[in-house]
C-alpha cells in the first residue's frame, strides 16, 4: 500500500501537517468514514519537537506521529467488529460501531478519545478525499518542504527507513529517514591566546579501544559528529604545539555539547 515517508532532514517544524489535519477533521464529520475530531486536544497527525544540545550548539528535531495503518494493527486484532481495513490498506475505526470503546485508546498511541462523542478516533488516511479523487492526504498536500511525501511500496527511499519507534522491520506504513543519532560536539580553544584551534584532530574511541570516528576542527575550532553510534567514548584532542587533551563523552541518552575544550601549549 501507499506509505507516508518522513524525511527528517527536510522538516522545518511549520506544523502545516498537524494543522491541515485539524482543518480537515475538527468539527467536520466525514461520515461514514469518521466523525468530527474535537476542536483541540486530538492529534491524528502529531508533530513532536525536541530541543537538542546546549548553547551555542542547539538544534530542534521535529517528528510527526501519524497512524501507519500497520500490517499487524492491534486495533484490528482486538476489535474487528468496529475496525476495518479497506482494499487500499487504510484502516478505519467505524464511528457507527465504536461508541464507548475507550479500550482502543490504550492499544495504540495514535488513537485519541473524543470525550464529547464518546468515540475512539484516529487518522483515516483522508480516505474520504482519496475516494473523491485526491492523490494524497492533507498532511502531505500541505507540506511545503517535501518532508512528507506519499510513496509507493517499492520506492527506493524506503530502504533503510524505520518506523516511529526506530524499528526497521515492522508493518507500519509511516516511515522515517535521515533521523540522526545523538551527537557529540564541542569547540577547541587556546584560552591563553584567545584563539580557536583550527584543524585539531579529534578522535572518538569506544570502550573496546576501537577508533569510531576521527574529525578535524573547522575554521571556528568546532567539531560535530554525524551519525556516530550512540555510546560512551574517550575523546582525544591533538593539535600541533599543544598538549593532547583527553575527555569522556557519553551520548547514550542524549546529545553531548562539550563546550569549550581548552588546550595548553606543549
Amino acid at each position, binding site marked *: 500500500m501507499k506509505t507516508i515517508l518522513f524525511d527528517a532532514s527536510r522538516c522545518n517544524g511549520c506544523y502545516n501537517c498537524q494543522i491541515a489535519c485539524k482543518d480537515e477533521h475538527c468539527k467536520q464529520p466525514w461520515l461514514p468514514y469518521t466523525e468530527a475530531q474535537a476542536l483541540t486536544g486530538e492529534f491524528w497527525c502529531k508533530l513532536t519537537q525536541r530541543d537538542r544540545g546546549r548553547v551555542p550548539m542547539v538544534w530542534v528535531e521535529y517528528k510527526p506521529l501519524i497512524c501507519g495503518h500497520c500490517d499487524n494493527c492491534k486495533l484490528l486484532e482486538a476489535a474487528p467488529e468496529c475496525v476495518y481495513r479497506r482494499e487500499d490498506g487504510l484502516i478505519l475505526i467505524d464511528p457507527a460501531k465504536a461508541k464507548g470503546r475507550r479500550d482502543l485508546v490504550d492499544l495504540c498511541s495514535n488513537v485519541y478519545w473524543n470525550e464529547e462523542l464518546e468515540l475512539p478516533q484516529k487518522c483515516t488516511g483522508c480516505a474520504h478525499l482519496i475516494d473523491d479523487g485526491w492523490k494524497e492526504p492533507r498532511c502531505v498536500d500541505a507540506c511545503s518542504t517535501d518532508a512528507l511525501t506519499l510513496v509507493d511500496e517499492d520506492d527506493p527511499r524506503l530502504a533503510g527507513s524505520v518506523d516511529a519507534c526506530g524499528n526497521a522491520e515492522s508493518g507500519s506504513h509511516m516511515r522515517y529517514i535521515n533521523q540522526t543519532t545523538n551527537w557529540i560536539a564541542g569547540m577547541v580553544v587556546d584560552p591563553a591566546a*584567545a*584563539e580557536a584551534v583550527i584543524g585539531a584532530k579529534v578522535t572518538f574511541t569506544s570502550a573496546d579501544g576501537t577508533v569510531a570516528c576521527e574529525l578535524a576542527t573547522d575554521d571556528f575550532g568546532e567539531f560535530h559528529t554525524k551519525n556516530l553510534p550512540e555510546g560512551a567514548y574517550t575523546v582525544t584532542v591533538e593539535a600541533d604545539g599543544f598538549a593532547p587533551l583527553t575527555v569522556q563523552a557519553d551520548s547514550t541518552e542524549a546529545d553531548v555539547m562539550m563546550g569549550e575544550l581548552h588546550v595548553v601549549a606543549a
Partner: protein
Amino acid sequence: MKTADKTVMQNMSLCSFGNGANGTCIDVKDGRIVRMRPIHFGQWYTKEDLNYWTIKARGHEFEPGMETYCPPFSIAYKTRTYSPNRIPYPLKRVDWDPDGERNPQNRGKSKYVRISWDEATTIIANEIKRIDDTYGRNSIMAQADGHGETGSLHGPHGCMANLLDMTGGLTMQARQPDSWEGWYWGAKHAWGQEPLGQNVHQTNLLKDISEHSDAILYWGCDAETTPWGWSGQQASRMMFWFTEIGVKYIAVSPDCNYANAVHADMWIPVLPNTDAALQLAIAYVWMTEGTYEKDYVATHTDGFDWFQYYVLGDEDGVPKTPEWAEEKCHVPAWRIKALARYWATHNVSIAHCNGGGYIRSCFSHEPARLEIYLLAMQGVGKPGRNQLKYIEWALMGMQSFSPMPSAEILPDVRACYHAAMLGDLPKSFIPKTLIAKALKGEKIEWYGHVTSRHPREDQFQHFQFPLEGDAGIKMVWSDSPCWSTCWNDGNEFQDAIRSENLEFFLVQHPWFENDTMFADIILPVSTKLELNDFGVDTYNGQFNIMIDEKAAVDHVGESLSDYEAVLEVAKKLEAFGGRYKKCVRHFTGGKSEEEWLEKGYRGSGIGGTEWEDYDTFKKQGIQILPTKEDWEDDPAGMINFAEDPDAFPLDSATGKIEFYSVPLAEHFPDDHVRGPVAHWIEEADGHQERISSDRAKDYPFLLVSNHPRWRVHANFDDCPWTREIETCKIVGPDGYAYEPVWINPVDAEKLGIKNHDIVGLYNERGTVMGAAYVTERIMPGALYQDHGSHTDPIVMGQGGLDRGGANNLICPDKTSSKNAAGEVTNGFLVGLKKMDLDELAKQYPEAFAPRPNYNPYTGISVMDQIIEED
C-alpha cells in the same frame, strides 16, 4: 462522497498595503469553509507555459515548484473567520453618550450594547460634522495602516482616510518604516538604497549565491517565521537548498530562532542589541591584520579613514578589540577573531528577513550602518558577496527586491485599491511612534515624514504636531486597532487613549482584540473570505499570480467590508450637503464591484500586453505569468556597482558607500548618537538599555521580542490550532493560556524558576505576564517572548499589569535616537519574577473572576463584554 461544493482562491497575505502573497484554495461545502490548501498550478499550466526556471549549481538543482507553499496561517485561516471573538454587530460603549457624559476614563473597562448600523452610522456622521465644525478637520485622525489581511477593492486600512480626505481633510497616523528602522535611519546614510536602506539590488542573488558563496550570515533574522505572513515557505526551501549545496549557515542572534533551530551550521549567540560591538571588533581584526579589500575601499567608498580612526581607538582611546566587544556582546573574543578571519577569506553574504531585535532597538541606525561598512570592507557586490533578503520579494512594485528569476510582468492592485496609499500624507500627520504623546495633547516635534516611501533627504525636514492654530486630536477612526500591542510603550498609549482630550474613538475591525476594547463605537468588519476582490500573489518566489478572489461564504454576522462600512458612513454624511455633497459617488467612483474588479485586472500592468485575457482569468479564477525569457542575463545583485562604481553609482550623496556621512554632519552637527560615522553608543537620548546601565541592577535581562512564530504581529492570537502548540501558549493552573517566556536553564535556576511557572516580565513601565519556557534556545542573560500577544490588562496604563503578555506595553517610549523617530520595541532591559496567581486573584478579584466565554484555546471573547438585551 462529495468533499466540496465549490472552490475559490484568494491571496492570504497578512502583509496588507495591497501586497499579495500566499495564494490559497478555499473549499466550501454546505455554505461553510471546509478546508484551505495550496494551489496546484498543473490544472491550468504546464511548466513550459510558465517558462519554468531551474537554478543549477554544484551538481544540484533548485526549482520553483508547481504549487503554492502555504504557511500554517493560510491553512488555519477559517478559524479566524469563524472566531468566537468576531464582533457580531455594531456596538456602542454603554457609558459613552455623544449627547452627554462620555466617560473616557472608562475606556477599556466598560461593556458594550448592541446598536444597529443605522444608529451607528448616524452617530459617526454627526460626530464627524460636530468635531469638524468645532475644532476643524485636523482634529480627526485616521489610524489606517498596519499588517493584516490584504485586500484591494475592499482594502483594509485606509478607506476612511480617503473619505475624510475628499470631504475636507484629516490628520494621518504616518506609518513608520517599522520593519527597517535601522536601515532607514542609518544604512540609507551609508549607501542610499532607496527607499529602505536595505539592498534593493536583489536580482538573481539566488543564482549568484548558489554559484559563488561559501557562507551566509543570518544576522538577527528568522527566515522560518517572518516570511510566513508575507510570502509563504519558499524561503524555507531556499535554506534547505543552500544546505544541500554546502553554503554554510552561520547564525548571529541571541536566540536559536526557528530557522537557526533547523538550518544553522553554527550559532553565534550575541546579547540583544549589542551587534554593533561585534561588528566593530570584526572591523578591528580586519584593520589590524590587513585583511579587508583595500582597493575596493579606495575606489568604492568615502571616508574610511574616519572609521579607522574610531575603530583603532585614536578617537577615544579605546581600541575596539575582540576583548572589548566580548564584554559588551558576550561573544568570546576567540570566536570573534575566527569569524572575522573566516569572513575575510571566503565569499560571504548576509541574509535578512526583517524581524528580530537587530534593527528595532535603540540606536538601531548604528548596527545597520556598521553592517554596510563591513560589507564594503569585503567588496560587496562581488560574486557571492551581497546582502540578501528572504522576504518582501516584490515590495513597492520593485522587481529588483526579488533574488529569484524575474518575471515578465509584476502585476499590482493599484488600479482598484481603495485603502490609503502609504506615504501619501496630508499636511497634518503624526509619526506612529509619537501617537500616544499627541493623544495626550503634548506638542511634538520630529524630523521626516517617517514613511518608507520618503527619500533620505526627507529626514532633514522638521515637522510638528499640532499645526499652528490646530486643536489637537479629538477623534480617532481606526481600522488597525493594535497600536498598544505593536508599538513603543503601549502602556503610555493605554493612558492616552483614555484621555479627556479624545472625545470619540471609533474602531472598525473583525475581532474584539487589542485596542478595540477601548473604542466608543465598534463596527463589525468582514474577513476577506467573505468578500469578492482582485488579488495578486507576487511575493512567493515562484511565479507571479493574479487571482479573481471570490467570496467563499456570506458575510458573517452583521459585518461589512472596510470599504462597505465607510460607504455606509458616507451615505449619512451626504445628507449634510456642502462639502459632503456627492461624497458617495466620489468615494465609489460611481463604479460597481464588478467594474472595479475588471479595472483592477486591466490596470494591474497586464493591460495591453500579450497576456491580457480577462475572460480566461475570470473562467479559471487565476492567471499565472511566466518567468522572463532572458532572466539569467540580468546582472546579479550589486555586481554593476562592484565592477564600475562610477558608471553605476549608489543613491548616496557621493554615489559611493559612505563611512562618513557629510549630510548628517551638516544637518545635525551636534548629534553624537547618530553622528557622521557609526559608533557604539552606550546610553543616550533617554535610553539606558545596556547591561552596563544602572537600570540593569533592577532589570538585568535584555528581552528579545521578535516577530511572533504563531502570529503576524497581533494577528492570529485566537487560533485554537496554533494555541495548542507549546511554543505558542502555555495553559496555567488557572486555566488561562499564557504567552511563553524563554529563559535559559542557567538563568532559570538562579531565579528558582521552573518550566511553565507563571512569571512576570517587568520594568518601571509595567509588568506583562507569561509562562516560563526553560530552553537552551535562548542565551543566558537574554529572555525571549514573542511580541503581539493580545493585551488583557489587569491594571491599565503606565506601571500597569497585563495578563495577556503583550510586551510592547513595556517597551521604551523614546524613539531610535533624538533625531531618528524610529520605534524601539526590542532588546530592552527587563526583570523576571515568579507570579503568585492566588495572591493576584485576591488583589484583583474582578480581573480574575471567571469569564463564561473565555477559552484557553481561543482566548478572550467579545461575548463577555456585551450586555445582552433582555
